[in-house]
């Protein structure tokens, strides 16, 4: 399916995509995980993750991208991300109030610091990435398959 010359763009685009799409996905994950240290965060990183799948879909056609992330997986992950963010919010009730930062703060400039903020970033990243990819999937695929 991935080498089918009928679907997607030309061989040049497919070869470049094979090299770059993993790096784009990795950069998105880096932006999400370092959200509390450097510019970026859950939303921007999630959009970059979604863009890597959009890149895959534009280059190889919709079947390859859908085989990586199907519609059911997309909607499940979207719900899991939203629930995880709400769970982080509700964890604050263990010490008294909504969205209280109850985990250990750690020392600044470390990757494992800032308590619940990285967890919120990961949850928003999953939610935004999968959600925007699902929107793209709906706008491009479902419309054509009338």
């Amino acid at each position, binding site marked *: 399916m991935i080498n089918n010359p009928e679907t997607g763009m030309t061989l040049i685009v497919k070869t470049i995509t094979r090299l770059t799409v993993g790096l784009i996905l990795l950069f998105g994950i880096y932006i999400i995980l370092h959200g509390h240290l450097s510019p970026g965060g859950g939303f921007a990183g999630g959009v970059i993750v979604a863009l890597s799948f959009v890149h895959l879909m*534009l280059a190889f056609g919709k079947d390859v991208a859908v085989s990586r992330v199907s519609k059911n997986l997309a909607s499940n992950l979207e719900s899991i991300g939203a629930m995880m963010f709400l769970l982080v*919010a509700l964890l604050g009730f263990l010490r008294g109030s909504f969205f209280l*930062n109850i985990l250990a703060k750690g020392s*600044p400039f470390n990757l494992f610091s800032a308590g619940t903020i990285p967890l919120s970033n990961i949850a928003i990243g999953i939610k935004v990435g999968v959600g925007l990819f699902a929107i793209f999937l*709906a706008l491009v695929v479902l419309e054509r398959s009338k």
Partner: protein
Amino acid sequence: MELHILLIFMIFAAIVAIEVKDLLSSVIAVGAVGFALCLAFLVLKAPDLAITQLVVEILCLIILIRATINKDLPLVIEGRWVFNALSTLGFIAVFLLFSWLALRELPRFGEPIMEVVKKYLQEGVSKTGAVNIVTAVILDFRAYDTLGEATVLFTSVIGIMAILRKPGRKKKE
């Protein structure tokens, strides 16, 4: 100075996006507005917003180009133009009135009243442990707002999936 050049360029590109006849050219002009806005955020020293604006603009451009590339919709301008023009002028007047009422209370551009910001800047790192103060504000001090935004995005995804899915189940006869 750079900011004024960018703003003039954005206004020019927005007028081009409205006036040009071809739909694809219009989408590209809208993209030029977005990228100039990204540069404006960088000039104003807001890298968080610049990154977000850049990636969202790219995704929007891909979706818009993909959606418009084979459909050059004709522009319908005839019809009830008197009513349309009057209602447009009315909405602009109401918008200007309310924005005048709201904006006259604000401080001048570039002169923030450092009341809330000062507290965040002083206590942000010690209270949250996050070095990026923007993340500390949106995910700790003002996390409730972020929950609302996440809900908005969730609702929009549900709405798009509901509208654009394949035709729904038919009732069994």
